[in-house]
């Protein structure tokens, strides 16, 4: 049955997280924006909370299945998007810096064997795909992995790695066979301190400055043979690569919900200022009889609602075991783009308050932009949606 009324359970999750965001994240948000690369030690208390754990222990040959949600139990993914929205309402940069909750942790939780889970499950893991020469086209990476006896030897350069410095292990994407194209791409767990593995530099960024983004250089870096995630076999098909990309069907709604949180923060602040100025937002008058500012506000609020519903739908589908490749990209395409537009517009409506670092509005405008870039840019999301609805392959629609 269609029912989009927020349930008590959802409210409980939301308000609990909102208290945390208000009490813990907001107060330190500006500090870590101004002190780029300083570790937010306040986040250490999250170390023990396993956000990216997996629901059930995986037995041989069995997929880890999420429990079906019911009235009493909230689906894991739906609850996750609610949590992330609230935390990002607090601060997106800090969310990205949560210990043990990196993208790498998600990748490990998704495919690791029990033995690997034992070794790496408790460690903070970054995820390194992007290279200087390959961004959106992640299938074109050139980092190499060569098997030498009982070890893999890794060579290459990885850029823009989130949590590059703070993570204890990195999930590195590399090709075992250039000629095999995408089918040759595998991921490997590399522990910090392994000889030949170096954090080259940390970037200075537009936004999410609390998060450390850096470059790894791998120079004849040797790791144990069983540090490979998934099978080492190079199949003729691109199944393996597609499988890895599938992780993104799960994480795209999460990135969309990051946009929701930041955008809502900007809108809440703008609403507060509009109401302080004596304007009452009553959802009644013909929008064309309102001031431009009020109409603009309502429209932004409507877009935020649309972003959220698309995101929740993608998460809900996942909880129900439905294939959501299309819907996940729809959510991210909409949320990344409109989150950016709305945060920009809020600064405009706020006038001087939107340009001054006295408030967080200018920061939200800088922070939200990343949601339209990482884990597939807005354009890439549009490509995925278009191919889906047109029934086109990546050759038919480049």
């Amino acid at each position: 049955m269609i029912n989009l009324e927020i349930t008590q359970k959802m409210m409980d999750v939301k308000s609990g997280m909102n208290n945390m965001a208000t009490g813990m994240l907001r107060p330190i948000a500006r500090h870590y924006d101004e002190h780029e690369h300083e570790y937010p030690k306040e986040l250490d208390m999250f170390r023990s909370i396993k956000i990216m754990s997996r629901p059930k222990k995986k037995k041989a040959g069995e997929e880890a299945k999420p429990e079906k949600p019911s009235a009493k139990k909230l689906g894991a993914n739906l609850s996750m998007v609610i949590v992330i929205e609230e935390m990002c309402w607090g601060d997106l940069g800090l969310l990205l810096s949560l210990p043990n909750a990196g993208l790498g942790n998600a990748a490990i939780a998704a495919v690791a064997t029990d033995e690997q889970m034992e070794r790496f499950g408790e460690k903070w893991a970054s995820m390194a795909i992007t290279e200087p020469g390959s961004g959106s086209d992640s299938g074109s990476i050139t980092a190499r992995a060569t098997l030498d006896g009982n070890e893999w030897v890794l060579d290459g350069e990885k850029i823009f790695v989130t949590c590059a410095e703070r993570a204890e292990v990195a999930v590195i994407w590399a090709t075992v066979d250039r000629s095999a194209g995408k089918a040759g791409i595998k991921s490997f767990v590399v522990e910090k301190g392994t000889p030949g593995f170096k954090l080259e530099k940390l970037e200075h960024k537009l936004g999410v400055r609390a998060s450390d983004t850096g470059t790894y250089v791998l120079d004849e870096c040797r790791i144990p043979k069983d540090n490979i995630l998934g099978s080492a076999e190079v199949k003729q098909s691109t199944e393996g690569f597609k499988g890895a990309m599938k992780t993104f069907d799960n994480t795209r709604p999460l990135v969309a919900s990051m946009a929701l949180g930041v955008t809502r923060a900007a809108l809440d602040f703008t609403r507060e200022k509009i109401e302080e100025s004596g304007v009452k937002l009553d959802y009644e008058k013909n929008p064309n009889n309102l001031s431009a500012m009020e109409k603009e506000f309502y429209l932004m609020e409507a877009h935020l609602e649309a972003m959220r519903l698309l995101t929740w739908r993608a998460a809900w589908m996942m909880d129900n075991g439905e294939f959501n490749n299309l819907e996940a990209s729809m959510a991210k395409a909409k949320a990344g783009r409109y989150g950016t537009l709305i945060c920009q517009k809020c600064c405009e409506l706020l006038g001087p308050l939107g340009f001054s670092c006295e408030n967080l509005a200018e920061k939200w405008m800088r922070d939200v932009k990343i949601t339209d870039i990482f884990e597939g840019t807005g354009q890439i999301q549009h490509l995925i949606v278009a191919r889906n609805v047109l029934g086109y392959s990546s050759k038919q629609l480049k």
Partner: protein
Amino acid sequence: MPLMEEKIMEDKDFGFGLSEEQSSMKDTVAKLIKSMVIGNPAHDMDEERKLHRDIIDKIWELGATVSMVPEEYGGYGMDYSPMMNAIFLEELAAGDMALAIAATLPSTFIYTILQMGTDEQKKKYLPLYCDPAYKTCTVAVNEPRFGFDAATLETKAAKNGEKYIINGKKCFVPMAKDSGHLLVAANADGKMDLFIVENGNPGLQIGEREKNLGLYALETYPVTLENCEVPADDRVGGDNGCDYGRFLQKTRIAMSAIGTGVSRASYEYAREYAKERVQFGEPIASRQAIAFMIAEMAYEVDAMRLMTWKATSALEAGREAKRESYLAKLYAGEMTMKLTDYGVQILGGHGFIRENPVERYYRNGRGITILEGMATV
């Protein structure tokens, strides 16, 4: 904390999936629309400036409206479900917007009386229209003036003894000529309200059929109320009037459901066209400039639908949907303009020619933000 536990137990599942009942109704309507409306009939009706009565009858025979009315008033006594109505309206509008309004027009009259009328009003009026055969009754909300706002009406209803005297001008009153009764929205001493006015009341003048930008097939009329006397008993809800705000909420949700349908029609037509049309040696859909417009249309149609469902969920739970319905209509209005424009643009010059339906969607879609009170859920 047993209290808390109980509350959680009461929560219905949150979810996006159609129930069996909902999807079977949706399929039935979609099939009917596909066989009777999409393609030439919708085009012909527009060109002929006339809806095909047999299609309206067929839709009415599905019984979507009448089924939700208690048996004592001539209905089939099933539960009232605004969600069913929202799904129904989208499907109809995906076929033709003029048809969606005309075929469900009696619902606006019927549901309003059913939910907000006095017992006498229900007994007197519902059986007239809860009939297996379609019988026209209509609603007069819009007023022909700059800055019109459905929430602040200029048509006035003044109490005079056992009567109300209504004065004012209305426009876009669908099918007024054929209607037995009109539900007239008026300002009664500062409170917006609805009055049941019989067609034939000497104070009621129905003017010449209007010519509009869109909805060519839908007859609409200007209506003038000049010292129009209505028995006090015909104020919907009796002496204290009705919940006009709720009436507006329901009509706003209906307009956003219709906007979803019109936008979807434009999207689906443009998408298929773009795969067929070859320029520079390739289907135009294989170029990103076109493909990305199609992608945007795809997710915005979904977003409009979800906004509609979100507002409808509030009604379904028996809650006010003031904020949600306002935002849903605002969103659907803006988006329908954007998407129906994309539809024309994707077809280029061919989109400008009346043989292709996208120009009709473009004209009709403009109505979503402008028209009030023409449909309900």
